[in-house]
C-alpha cells in the first residue's frame, strides 16, 4: 500500500552553529606541528658543528 510522504517525520540533527571545537582542534594540530618541526630543526642545528 502506498504511503503518503507528507506527515512523515524526519530526524535531521542540526549541529550547534557556534561550536568551534573542530576549529580549535585544527588550530592546535597546526600549532603543534609547527612547534615540533621548528624544535626538530633547532636540535639538528645544535647537534652539528
Amino acid at each position: 500500500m502506498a504511503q503518503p510522504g507528507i506527515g512523515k517525520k524526519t530526524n535531521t540533527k542540526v549541529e550547534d552553529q557556534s561550536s568551534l571545537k573542530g576549529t580549535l582542534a585544527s588550530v592546535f594540530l597546526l600549532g603543534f606541528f609547527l612547534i615540533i618541526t621548528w624544535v626538530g630543526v633547532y636540535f639538528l642545528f645544535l647537534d652539528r658543528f
Partner: protein
Amino acid sequence: MHIHKFEKIWLIFGITTLLVFLSVIGVSAFYLGNQPPSCLATINPEKVDTTAPFDKPGLKKVEGKEWDYELVFVASAFAYNPGQVEVPKGAKVKVIATTKDVIHGFEVAGTNINMMLEPGFISEYVTTFDKAGEYLIVCNEYCGVGHHMMSSKIEVVE
C-alpha cells in the same frame, strides 16, 4: 565585543608562540652575537691573492684570539684553494673565505657551515670541529660551466 572562549585560547597560543620565536632571534643576535657569515668585512676582489690572510690559504694556528685556528679559503672558478685540508679534532676554528671572481657557495656538507661568497666581501664562521671524519665542501651557488666539479675537502683527524 564578544570573543568566543576558544578564539581567546588560540589567540593567546598564537601570540605566545610568535613572541617566543621572536625572542629566540633577539637572544641569538644581541646576546649570543650571532650574525650573517658576511658581515661588513670587505676586500678588493682583484687583489685577493696579495691581501692577508688570503695570500696564504690553509690552516693557521693563531694565538690570543677566541679561536685556536684560522682556516682560510679562496674560491675561484672552478676550485677552492686549498683543495684539501686537515683539521685536528676539537679545534676551535674560524673559517674565513672569499671569492676572486663571481659569487660562489661554501657548504661543508652535513655541518652548519654554509656561506655565500660574494666578490668584495669576506665570509666568516666560527665553529668547533668536534666530530672526526671527512667533510666535502661544495659550491651551492651556480657559478658557471664547471660549477658541479667545484669541491674541496676538510679532514677532521684525531
